[in-house]
C-alpha cells in the first residue's frame, strides 16, 4: 500500500506482509481500499480476497479510532490540550502590528511573509526568532529554528535587534531571549529540502524544544530544472509536476506545524505582474479626490484614479447598488489582486505576484504582504527628469488569514527592528 503508513503511522503491518508488496505494485492506495470492493482489489493485485477484506477492516478500525471527537481549538498529536478559548501566538513585538494579527503569528499554522527584496521580510523573521522565546502571551517560551536557503542567518543583525529593541531591553536578564536558543541550518537544493524538512527537522524540533520554524526563503530552491538525459518535458508537464511538489511541501509544513504545535513562518519572493485593467470611463469622469497627503505627492504621469465609491454611501444623493467591477470576475488576473496582496486598490500599477503560484497560496493559513512604495521628493521636476526617491513607504498588509481580518498598517525599519508608524493611515482594506 503506497500510503498506508502515512495515513496510519501506528498501523501494524506484520499480519499483512504477504499481500502488501503486491498491493503496492498494483498502485493501490488506502483510499482505493475503502472505496473499492475487496474482490476487485484482490483481482487487480492478484492476492486472496479474504486477506484484502481483513486488511480493509483493520484499516477502517484504525481510522475510526483516530478520528475522535475533539473540542474546537484543541490540537492533536503530542501537544497537551489547551483551553479552547486560548489562541497561542508569537508576537511581532509591536503593538499595532500585533493587533492587526490578533496577537501575532499563530501556532500550528503556516504563515507567509512575502515581499520584494529589501522589503523587510528578514527583519520580521529575525524579530520572531527572538519573540518566540518569550513567555506567553508574547511568545511560547521555546527555541527557534531558522532554515536559510540563500544567505545564512544574519547573526550581527539579530544581535543588534536583541540589544536595541525597545521591548527587549526592558526585560530582566533571565527573561530576555538569547542567541543560543536560535538554531540555524542551511538547505542548498530542492532534493535536500524535502529530505531535511521531512526527516531531520522533526528530530531537531524535539531535541531543542523548538516552538518556531522559519524558512527563508521557500522559493529560492525552485529554479527551472533542465532535465539532462530524460526526454524533454513539455512545459505543461513541468508545471503540473511543480504544482504537485509545491502541494506536497505545503502539506508537509502544515502537518509539521500541527503535529508538533509550532508556528511555521515562511518568506517568499515576488515576480512582476502586468494586469490589463482598463478603468471604466464612468469612473474617470467623476470628480477626482486627492489621494495622498501633499508631502508625498508624486509627479503625475498617470491620471489619478479616483478612490472607489464605498458601498452604500450616498454619492450625489443616489445610493449605488453593489456591482461587479468587471464582467469577467473569475479571471485569474482579476482575482490575483485579492489574494496576492498587490492590486486590491485600483490605483496600484506596480503589481507583484508571490512565487510558487496558486498551488502554494492554497496551502497557506495566512499571508502577510510587505509592500514597498517609493516616496518621491516633492519638488519641481524638469521635463524628462527622473523623480528622486526620498524614502520608502512600507506597508504591513494582512492579505488573508484564518484567524484575523485583513488589514493594512504602515511600518518602518530601524536599528531596533521593525515598528509601526501610527500617525499616517492608508485608505483601503
Amino acid at each position: 500500500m503506497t500510503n498506508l503508513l502515512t495515513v496510519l503511522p501506528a498501523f501494524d503491518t506484520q499480519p499483512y506482509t504477504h499481500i502488501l508488496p503486491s498491493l503496492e505494485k498494483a498502485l493501490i492506495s488506502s483510499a482505493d481500499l475503502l472505496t473499492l470492493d475487496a474482490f476487485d482489489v484482490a483481482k487487480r493485485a492478484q492476492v486472496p480476497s479474504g486477506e484484502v477484506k481483513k486488511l480493509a477492516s483493520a484499516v477502517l478500525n484504525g481510522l475510526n479510532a483516530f478520528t475522535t471527537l475533539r473540542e474546537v481549538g484543541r490540537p492533536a498529536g503530542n501537544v497537551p490540550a489547551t483551553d479552547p478559548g486560548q489562541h497561542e501566538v508569537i508576537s511581532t513585538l509591536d503593538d499595532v502590528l500585533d493587533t492587526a494579527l490578533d496577537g501575532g503569528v499563530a501556532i500550528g499554522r503556516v504563515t507567509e511573509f512575502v515581499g520584494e527584496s529589501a522589503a523587510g521580510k528578514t527583519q520580521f523573521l529575525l524579530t520572531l526568532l527572538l519573540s518566540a522565546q518569550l513567555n506567553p502571551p508574547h511568545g511560547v517560551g521555546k527555541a527557534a529554528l531558522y532554515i536559510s536557503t540563500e544567505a545564512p542567518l544574519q547573526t550581527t543583525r539579530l544581535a543588534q535587534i536583541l540589544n536595541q529593541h525597545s521591548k527587549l531591553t526592558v526585560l530582566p536578564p533571565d527573561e530576555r531571549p538569547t542567541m543560543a536558543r536560535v538554531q540555524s541550518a542551511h538547505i542548498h537544493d530542492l532534493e535536500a529540502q524535502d529530505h531535511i524538512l521531512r526527516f531531520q527537522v522533526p528530530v531537531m524540533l524535539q531535541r531543542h524544544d523548538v516552538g518556531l520554524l522559519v524558512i527563508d526563503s521557500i522559493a529560492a530552491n525552485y529554479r527551472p530544472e533542465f532535465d539532462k538525459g530524460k526526454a524533454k518535458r513539455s512545459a505543461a508537464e513541468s508545471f503540473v509536476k511543480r504544482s504537485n511538489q509545491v502541494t506536497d511541501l505545503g502539506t508537509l509544513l502544515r502537518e509539521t506545524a500541527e503535529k508538533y504545535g509550532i508556528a511555521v513562518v515562511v518568506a517568499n519572493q515576488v515576480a512582476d505582474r502586468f494586469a490589463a485593467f482598463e478603468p471604466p470611463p464612468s469612473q474617470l469622469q467623476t470628480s477626482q479626490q486627492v489621494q495622498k497627503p501633499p508631502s508625498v505627492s508624486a509627479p503625475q504621469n498617470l491620471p489619478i484614479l479616483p478612490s472607489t465609491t464605498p458601498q452604500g454611501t450616498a454619492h450625489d444623493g443616489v445610493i449605488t447598488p453593489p456591482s461587479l467591477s468587471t464582467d469577467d470576475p473569475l479571471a485569474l488576473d482579476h482575482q490575483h489582486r485579492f489574494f496576492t496582496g498587490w492590486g486590491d486598490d485600483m490605483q496600484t500599477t506596480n503589481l507583484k505576484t508571490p512565487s510558487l503560484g496558486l498551488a502554494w497560496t492554497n496551502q497557506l493559513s495566512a499571508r502577510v504582504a510587505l509592500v514597498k512604495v517609493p516616496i518621491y521628493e516633492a519638488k519641481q521636476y524638469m521635463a524628462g527628469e527622473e523623480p528622486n526617491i526620498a524614502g520608502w513607504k512600507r506597508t504591513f498588509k494582512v492579505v488573508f488569514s484564518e484567524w484575523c481580518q485583513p488589514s493594512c498598517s504602515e511600518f518602518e525599519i530601524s536599528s531596533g527592528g521593525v515598528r509601526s508608524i501610527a500617525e499616517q493611515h492608508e485608505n483601503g482594506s
Partner: protein
Amino acid sequence: MATVIDITSSPQKLPPSSHRLPTVSASDALQELQTAGPETIATTLPALDTLLAGVGTNSIGGLGRGKTTEIWGPVGAGKTALLLQIAARELCRGSTVVWIDGSSPLVATRLDSAIEQRTSAMSGIAATQGEIVRYRNNLKHYRVPTLSHLLAMVLHSQPDFPPSGTTMVVIRGLNTLIDIDYPRILFASAGKSPQQKWQAGRRYAVLGSLIAGLNKLAVLNNVAIVATTGCASRTRSDSGLGSALVPGISGAEWDGGVWNRLVIFRDFHCRFVGVQKSQGRSLIGRQEIGETGKIVAFDVEHDGSVRQQGPSSSLPSEALRKSISRSPAKPRGRYIDEVADSEGEDADEYGWAETDEDALTADTGVDETTEQIATA
C-alpha cells in the same frame, strides 16, 4: 351504490370495503409539509436564499437538507466566514452541527465570535458566557488528516454518526485532501503502464464514490452537507481569454452529484456569492469557464459577521452590465440573427416546432462535464 367520498376527509374515514386507494387531501398534505420542519437551512443572506429556492414552491430557500452543496472560491474570499455564520444560526436554534476540517483546524475564537453575533442578532440581547459555551458544545468538531479518514467516516460511518439532532455537516478543505492522495496527472504523458493508467482515473472514481456516499448520508439523516473547496486555474485559450478560476474538485460524477454549487469571490468594493448550480440544475453553460451565475453581494465586517449588501433580491444581470468595465478580450454575447437560407419557409407547417420545444425545455437532468487538463 357509489360510496360518497368526502374529499376533505382524512383517509381513515374510507369504508373498509372500498377498493379505492386511500387519498390524502391537499390541505392535509400541505399541513404535513409545514409541520415537518424546514427542509432547508437558511444562508443568512436573504437574496441567496431566494436564488436557492425552487421555482414555484412555497418553501423557503436555502441549503437543502438531504442534499450536498459545494462552495468553492479563492483563499480569503469568505467561505469560512459565511459558513460559520450559517452554522452559528443553526447552533443558536438548538441544532447540532458537525464540522469536519480537512486542511487546517478552525480557530476557536472565530466560532465563539460567530455565536455571539448570532445570538444578539436573533434575540437582540448579548449572549452570556454560559449560553455561548452551550451552543459551542453543539458543534461537533472532527479533524480528518487524510482522505482515507474522511472516506472511513462517510462511506463506512459509525452508527452514532452523525449525532442525533444534526441539521448540517460541514466539510472544509475537501480539495486539499483529494490533491494529496490523487494529484492531478497529465493524461497526455505517454509510456504509462496499465497500473498507472488505472491509477490516473482513480481520482474521479473516488470522487464519484465520495459524492454518492455524501448524498446517501445526507438523505438518511436529513442533514445538509456543505463541502468547501479551494480553486484551481484553467486556461481559456479557445476563447482568447486568460486563465480563470475553477473549482478545485471537478469530474462528471462529482459535478452531477452536488445539488447546489456556489462560488464566493472578492471584488474591489465587496464580495459576491454566485450561484452556479441550484436545485440540481446547472445555471451556467458547460463550457463557460469563469461564469459566475446570478450573484449576491455581501461583505464581511470587522467583527467577522457577514452581511448582505444591496437590495434584498439578487442583482439582475442587466443592472450589472451597465457600470462595469468590459474585459478587453471577452467575447460579447452575439444575438443570433436570422440565417439567410431559411428564407420564405413557413416555420411550422406540420406543428413540429411546438413539440420540439417541449422536448428541449423538459428536464433533461444533469449535464455531464467533459474532462480537460487542469493546471493548478
